[in-house]
């Protein structure tokens, strides 16, 4: 079944940029912005909440590990709408991750054999359609790229 969508009040390629301080709690500003854009595109509330959590985790990692809570640095959040996809880039001043560690083992955590924290990457990968960590390179800051796609949305609603 094709799901009717509201007429999009934006042009393809619309981009919004937000800069948040490197202070925990400000990830909520990025969450709100991402939610507003996802709703404008017609994503369901379930998918909006998934994206919000993924954006929050990416921002927290950028604040804590990328910018190391340095108040002189901000975290950039660039949100781009395309006809079928909402992409979010979360940019910080760190080196970026050389190896994506999305491993999470609840049994090891419950036995005290693994740090309780460290679930951010795991959650990000579980909640969005695409997640990519790009290390810093010459002339370019490190970033994580998240994306949710409308075709996945229709599949999810139909239960396929």
């Amino acid at each position, binding site marked *: 079944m094709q799901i009717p969508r509201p007429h999009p009040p934006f042009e393809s390629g619309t981009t919004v940029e937000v800069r948040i301080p490197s202070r925990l709690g400000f990830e909520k500003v990025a969450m709100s912005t991402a939610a507003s854009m996802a709703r404008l595109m017609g994503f369901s509330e*379930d998918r909006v909440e998934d994206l919000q959590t993924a954006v929050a985790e990416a921002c927290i990692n950028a604040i804590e590990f990328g910018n190391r809570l340095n108040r002189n640095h901000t975290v950039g959040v660039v949100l781009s709408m395309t006809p079928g996809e909402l992409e979010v880039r979360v940019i910080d001043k760190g080196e970026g991750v050389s190896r994506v560690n999305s491993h999470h083992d609840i*049994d090891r955590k*419950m036995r005290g054999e693994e740090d*309780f*924290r460290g679930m951010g990457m795991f959650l990000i990968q579980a909640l969005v359609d695409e997640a990519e960590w790009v290390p810093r390179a010459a002339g370019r800051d490190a970033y994580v790229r998240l994306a949710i796609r409308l075709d996945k949305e229709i599949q999810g609603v139909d239960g396929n």
Partner: protein
Amino acid sequence: MVSVLRFSGDISSLSRDAVLGTWHQLPDDAKGRVLLDFSGVDYLNSSGIALVINMLMEARRGAHSVRLFGLRPHFQKMFRLVGITNYTELHPDEASALESFGAA
């Protein structure tokens, strides 16, 4: 006796004292059966989930029983994703959570 810890607002890395501190302040004889009430929680992130896992680990070591209720559907999803449901039960409301202790 069942003890109920009611959380509200945010559960994040900034909530360590509120979450674990409250748990640690419970006397041992009040830890046997504990309910965690999430119905007032607006925001929960991976650091907050880590605090809950920490609490569940300590409860397990002490042979205490902890159950959760009042989680929004999205938070239930997050808890299922990380596997917390392998170690505790999620209930929709306080009445059903209490009833589950009676049935245990």
